[in-house]
């Protein structure tokens, strides 16, 4: 067995034990760094996002320098070349701030819920795509198809390299996604403003559409073929991301969000799987629902929550991830960062159930200083429980 394979198996075992709330000898350290990786590499944002050979150097260099145990993203979060090939021109890469800007336009109209519900792909093909890509034609679709294949080759190649050379399991982004239907409407179709209005003006249409969309094709395909038992070749069996919940009250969450999240909870319990939830924003008003998670089956990566408070309120049921403040990673000293990392591990990981990570997607130059990150990761790797 190679050294990389030993590390791979050790990381998976550690992950499964941590989620099951077993005491472990060290904590896992997960990266939710995204575009900061490019900044740290010295490449421009526009270079790395449009050249897979550069992106491979970026993510490989990042791992060799900081040595996380697992990655949310290995350069696949923004597959801009596919949309550009289809004629999308609204991306603005800011090589100074490392920000990607684009027009936040809701391409679905509020009176189109029935069309969407009737046939998802028919609606996308006949209404949404021509609206979002006004110049789209067969030639551009074929160019986008070629780009999609090249993106797939990059994804498979970098995943294989990370497993075989570094012993790193496949990333969050390439894991099977249970796409909560409210998130589909929120992220891709109606946007913050549109959906906020819709849940007040046409709540039944929104609810019926959530019911019709379900948890998405990837989840359904997985559900149809999987066996009982967690997969020992990957970290989580399933992933999902919460963002739209940030616009909901508890009552609205119960209606538009909870039934579908509960369905995933029930599935992972029944099939003995592990679900990794990345909860963007602040989620504490929904802890009563998170407490319904089957113990030993769910990780919740909290972004802006007070993770010490979360440990007291839901930490006996779910495994928590996150907690390392990006503000400290940029503004703090090395000592302050190591002290905080030690506090996180001491207070949260004593009985398992905690994965070390950052408290926000790390994107911009002033989100982190390299010397602080290096010191924290060296500390976390060596610190034994």
């Amino acid at each position, binding site marked *: 067995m190679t050294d990389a394979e030993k590390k791979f198996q050790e990381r998976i075992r550690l992950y499964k034990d941590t989620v099951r709330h077993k005491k472990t000898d060290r904590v896992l350290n997960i990266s939710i760094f995204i575009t900061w990786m490019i900044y740290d590499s010295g490449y421009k944002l526009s270079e790395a996002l449009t050249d897979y050979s550069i992106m491979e150097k970026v993510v490989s260099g990042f791992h060799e320098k900081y040595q996380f145990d697992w990655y949310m993203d290995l350069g696949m979060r923004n597959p801009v070349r596919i949309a550009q090939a*289809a004629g999308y021109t609204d991306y603005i890469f800011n090589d100074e701030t490392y920000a990607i800007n684009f027009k936040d336009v809701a391409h679905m109209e509020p009176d189109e819920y029935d069309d969407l519900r009737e046939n998802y792909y028919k609606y996308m*093909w006949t209404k949404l795509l021509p609206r979002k890509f006004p110049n789209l034609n067969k030639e551009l679709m074929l160019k986008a198809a070629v780009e999609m294949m090249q993106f797939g080759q990059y994804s498979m190649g970098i995943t294989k390299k990370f497993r075989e050379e570094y012993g790193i399991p496949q990333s969050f982004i390439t894991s099977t996604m249970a796409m909560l239907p409210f998130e589909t409407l929120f992220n891709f179709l109606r946007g913050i403003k549109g959906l906020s209005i819709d849940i007040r003006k046409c709540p039944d249409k929104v609810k019926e559409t959530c019911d019709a969309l379900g948890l998405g094709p990837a989840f359904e395909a997985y559900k149809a073929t999987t066996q009982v038992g967690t997969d020992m070749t990957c970290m989580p069996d399933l992933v999902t991301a919460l963002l739209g919940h940030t616009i909901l009250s508890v009552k609205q969450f119960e209606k538009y969000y909870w039934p579908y999240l509960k369905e995933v909870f029930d599935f992972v319990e029944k099939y003995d799987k592990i679900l990794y939830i990345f909860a963007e924003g602040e989620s504490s008003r929904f802890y009563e629902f998170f407490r319904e998670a089957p113990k030993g089956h769910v990780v919740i990566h909290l972004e802006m929550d007070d993770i010490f408070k979360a440990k007291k309120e839901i930490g006996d049921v779910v495994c928590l991830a996150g907690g390392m403040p990006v503000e400290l990673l940029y503004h703090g000293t090395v000592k302050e960062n190591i002290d905080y990392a030690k506090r996180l591990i001491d207070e949260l990981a004593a009985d398992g159930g905690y994965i070390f990570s950052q408290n926000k997607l790390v994107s911009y130059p002033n989100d982190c200083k390299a010397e602080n990150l290096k010191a924290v990761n060296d500390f976390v790797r060596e610190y034994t429980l």
Partner: protein
Amino acid sequence: MAENNLFTYPEGWNEMLAALDFLPDEAREAFLKGLVQSLVGA
């Protein structure tokens, strides 16, 4: 708005499937759905 008949259903959809002739027949539908989803999410 794109001025062609490609974005009709099922006629234009099937035309696009046929144009993906570098893929095996049985893989085209899933590939096109994935591509559409990728573009919608861009």
